[in-house]
């Protein structure tokens, strides 16, 4: 897919999502350019995860539009969006706990393969090559995090991993789908300071080495500061500030949203 560089990879316009009387998203506008790392920040309940869920097709929006590579993707199912190149991780880690680490990553490659029933039963040469390729690609994705998910670990069930490694595996699984755009929902939650700093580098590497466009929801301001080309602050489902980290961090409304009082008082 060749896209002009200036066209936004992801463009969200006037997005609305209501749950009963609650406006989780309200007239939200966001644009993400190719190769950018954009952080979305905001207090709990600001609608950040809802935004991800609408983009990835888990929720249908109640209004507005989501455009990916210039085309509207509203109404597409999550698995169709993965095939188009949008991958994500979940705030509450959601691995296939009883599958091995390698199998988890291989599931990511599912959408890039097409082996059917009869081919799989007969195990034709084509299917065997495809399986080989899926495995190689999965191992490659796991290798992004160094030895942590490689070696003997690949054949262990995912539930045996530490919390931080589960988060890493979730990212590896998302990367194994060969995405253009990756959405990371609080990737450092539950990690210790050292692991958090390391993950900061990983996020930058995703863009620099793999050429991914990254949108990340994050609470840890060191990470936000370290990775972001641009920061978008949300509250009550609306965008309240946008710009570089320093601009947003000193924005009155952002400080107010976080502290709950007017900063000027």
């Amino acid at each position, binding site marked *: 897919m060749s896209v002009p560089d200036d066209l936004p990879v992801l463009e969200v316009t006037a997005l609305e999502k209501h749950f009963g009387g609650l406006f989780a998203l309200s007239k939200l506008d966001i644009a993400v350019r190719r190769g950018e790392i954009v952080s979305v920040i905001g207090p709990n309940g600001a609608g950040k995860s809802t935004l991800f869920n609408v983009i*990835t097709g*888990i929720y249908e929006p109640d209004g507005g539009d989501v455009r990916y590579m210039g085309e509207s993707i509203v109404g597409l*199912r*999550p*698995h*169709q969006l*993965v*095939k188009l190149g949008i*991958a*994500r991780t*979940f705030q509450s880690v*959601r*691995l*296939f*706990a*009883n*599958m*091995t680490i390698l*199998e988890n990553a*291989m*599931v*990511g490659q*599912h*959408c890039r*393969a097409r*082996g059917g*029933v009869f081919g*799989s*039963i*007969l*195990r034709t040469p084509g*299917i065997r090559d*495809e*399986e080989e390729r*899926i495995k190689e690609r999965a191992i490659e994705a796991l290798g992004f995090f160094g*030895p942590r998910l490689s*070696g*003997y670990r690949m*054949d*262990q*069930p995912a539930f*045996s991993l530490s919390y931080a490694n589960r988060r890493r595996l979730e990212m590896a*699984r*998302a990367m194994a*789908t060969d995405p253009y755009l990756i959405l990371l929902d609080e990737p450092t939650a539950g990690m210790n300071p050292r692991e958090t700093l390391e993950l900061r580098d990983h996020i930058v590497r995703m863009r620099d080495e793999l050429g991914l466009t990254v949108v990340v929801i994050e609470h840890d301001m060191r990470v936000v500061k370290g990775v972001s080309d641009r920061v978008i602050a949300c509250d009550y489902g609306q965008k309240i500030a946008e710009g570089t980290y320093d601009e947003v961090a000193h924005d009155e409304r952002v400080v107010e949203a976080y502290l709950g009082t007017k900063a000027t008082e």
Partner: protein
Amino acid sequence: MNRVVKAGLAGGAVTIFLGLVGLIERFADLSLVGEQVTFSRLILVVAPFIVGYAVGRPRVEHGERRSITAREALLWGAVAGAVAGALVGVAAVAVDAFGVERVRAVFIQVTQGLIDFVTLGLEPPIVGAIGLTAISAVAGVLGGAMHVVPDRIRKPIVSAIATILALGFLQRVVPVAMAEIDLETDWLYTSAGLTWFGAAVIGGIAAGVSILKTWKGDVIRDAIRGTTTGSQIGVEGSAPRGGTSVLRTVILGGAAVGLFVLPLVVGSVVSERLGTVMVFILLGLGLNIVVGYAGLLDLGYVAFFAFGAYATGILTGGMLNSFEGITPPVIHADLSFYVALPIVVLLAAFVGMLIGAPVLRLRGDYLALVTLGLGEMVSVLVASPWLTPLVGGPAGMRDISDAAIGGISFRDPKNFYFLALAFVILALFVSRRLYRSRIGRAWTAMREDEQTADAMGISTTSYKLLAFAMGGAIGSIGGALFAVKIGSITPASFQVFVSLQVLGIVILGGLGSLPGVVVGALVLVGLPGILREFEEYSFLAYGAALVIVMLLRPQGLVPNVRRTRELQEEERAQDAWAAEKEQEAAVEGVST
């Protein structure tokens, strides 16, 4: 102590229950060994033995493992056994005092004979009750002794007793098989169970094998696995793991030959039942794809069984019993079974999708309930007047093809076994290939977490439909073979119980496990047929078996092998990996 008494009371209650349902008296004449060891007598001591064993088990108390001394084990076993026996004795005395006839008005299986039996035929009953208590106490002590006696003595004894009892129960099967291959049976069996001499020989052999296993066990195991003790796995390149040894080949070959000669030696009664087992293995393999692989709880699986059977009937010239005599159904074809079968299978896959489509959005309990209803609809439909011109209503269909090839009829139980075996092997092959492919991975992911699977690029809709289609296709083969096997079918064979039975097979064997399906079918379908005497109690045994297995072994009898092996080999792999890394580090250390 409280715990010990409670266990004893529970054991006594079980025995009383078995007495009330008539199990004890019914088998007073079923001798296992000689005329002395009857099934009923065995029942009387089984419960005390088990509670005696149970109370002596080491257990975890307040988070600490508390081991039990030999004296405690024996004493507690005696007490628990005595309590169990005393409870049964007291119950018998009470019934006797109250009047057997009056109790019989409610519990119709309670007879004077039962009371006499339980009180050991002694007068007055209270003496018999005391005797029973004493015997039960001994049984309890023996149960407790299981923890006390060292392994090398215990194992041969247990193995000898288990083998003798198993052969005792199989007294209708083993002699027939032995006679078929011209073996003398008189030394081993009489008309009533094993002879004492035979039992002694069998017990001796079993004990000998057990001793040999303890003594040379690891050598034998290595020979079978084709590994040598102490070979380092994964450290020095590829170790010769999985290499075939002569012994391993012999065992596998022996098993294969056994499968083929089985119906030739077991006689037609058991062959007939083996054929039924094969049909249920096919049903189990089909349902395993839906429930075990894709995680869709389908309680209406009988629909595919019925579809396969009736569609085969219609396509292979089946006729209807009607008021005008024997008439062809409104849709009628007289194809060869082998032409009809692919059509039936394809149609069944399509029906699977039709059934799957409306329930795609349902999960768990809701899915189970709706499929239960859909399955029941099929049972009702095939008996309904509306479909009578097609499937014959309650009178059913007859004259279905016997799938003969060159004059060999597969209506014959022995021939049928081979036909069914071929399809079972095919279904096993298909299941295994699918499970270990991209498709199997997608099913597993979907079973683990449907929404996440969707968000990772798996079209859950397609894969659910595919699971229903594949499950339906394999299940319909089971139905088709069933129709061939018996030649005429009626709605009575397609009741909702079949769904539950097949689900029982899959769950008992272990969800997602192919050997599990085979073992599950052998246990739940095969055993009741072989132990004919127990037929009327088969549902009781069925329920008890499910409860016990689910409590003690919730992963099933033969759990999904791959995962189990992974867990076991994890440690060795980890060690190998660590050693490798250490070596690398050492090399780097030298070079820098």
